């Protein structure tokens, strides 16, 4: 792949709040659990979830990644100031840190922050942290994504 333009490192720390809240529905949790083949009743049956100490059915750990698809903008990936070439982007790493499980009925807010832009050989790495909070403003989880931008590291002057 030919070299591309580097990302704008001045945008380190820029925040991208989602334009609306995300309401977590029971059927959506059930649909997600079905899609990943998870048959645990805590994701399907409110009585089983309550027996396990939860107020309602809970979402599997990676459910929250879908919020980014619900609110594709604003996002670092579509921010013209950052200058990402989406065709060069590969999802390199993903992490979830949970403060509590996501429960049906939650009304979640999301803010994504650019926490890293650095070179890795010919590639650049874009690191984003997405903080998810609940209806009381309390933290639910933090998602950390490392995206590889292939071939966009600043090139040494041709010798």
């Amino acid at each position, binding site marked *: 792949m030919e070299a591309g333009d580097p990302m704008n490192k001045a945008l380190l720390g820029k925040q991208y709040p989602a334009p609306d809240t995300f309401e977590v529905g029971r059927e959506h949790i059930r649909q997600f659990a079905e899609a990943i083949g998870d048959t645990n009743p805590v994701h399907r049956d409110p009585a089983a979830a309550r027996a396990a100490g939860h107020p309602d059915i809970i979402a599997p750990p990676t459910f929250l990644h879908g919020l980014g698809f619900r609110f594709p903008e604003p996002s670092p990936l579509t921010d013209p100031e950052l200058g990402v070439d989406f065709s060069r982007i590969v999802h390199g790493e993903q*992490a979830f840190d949970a403060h509590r499980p996501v429960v049906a009925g939650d009304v979640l807010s999301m803010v994504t922050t650019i926490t890293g832009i650095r070179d890795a050989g010919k590639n650049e790495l874009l690191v984003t942290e997405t903080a998810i909070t609940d209806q009381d403003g309390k933290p639910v989880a933090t998602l950390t994504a490392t995206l590889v931008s292939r071939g966009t590291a600043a090139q040494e002057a041709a010798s």
Partner: protein
Amino acid sequence: MTSAPPTAASAEVGTQLPELVATITRLDLIKYAGASGDYNVIHWSQRIATAVGLPGVIAHGMLTMAVAARVVTDWVGDSARVEHYSVRFSAPVPVPDDDRGIDVTLRGVVEEKLPDGRVRVAITATIGEGTTVLSAATAIVRLD
């Protein structure tokens, strides 16, 4: 599950989690696209996937990550016990257009005991003859 749930006392460094073989079919990709909202075309169009240099339609990395978590959540019995989960996507998972799909073999081993009844589990996810599709896959879970 047939075995008793693990406890902080019973889990030792080196404890193996029950192996899980998860099959991913084209239908699973459609289900995951709908459930997650990830409609990236390389996960459903053979035409586009091959045009961009992939071996064919590949699974969503996040589907593989979600399926791999089951080796841990099946073991602990409740995903609310998962405090941390991280992976590196190291190879694509090609999903054939047949009735069989592709098997992903998932294993876990307790790598470290942490304070407050928590343990760190290392997860491996392989396809075919042992190709690693997730590397550095780690979960931290809270046990009783």
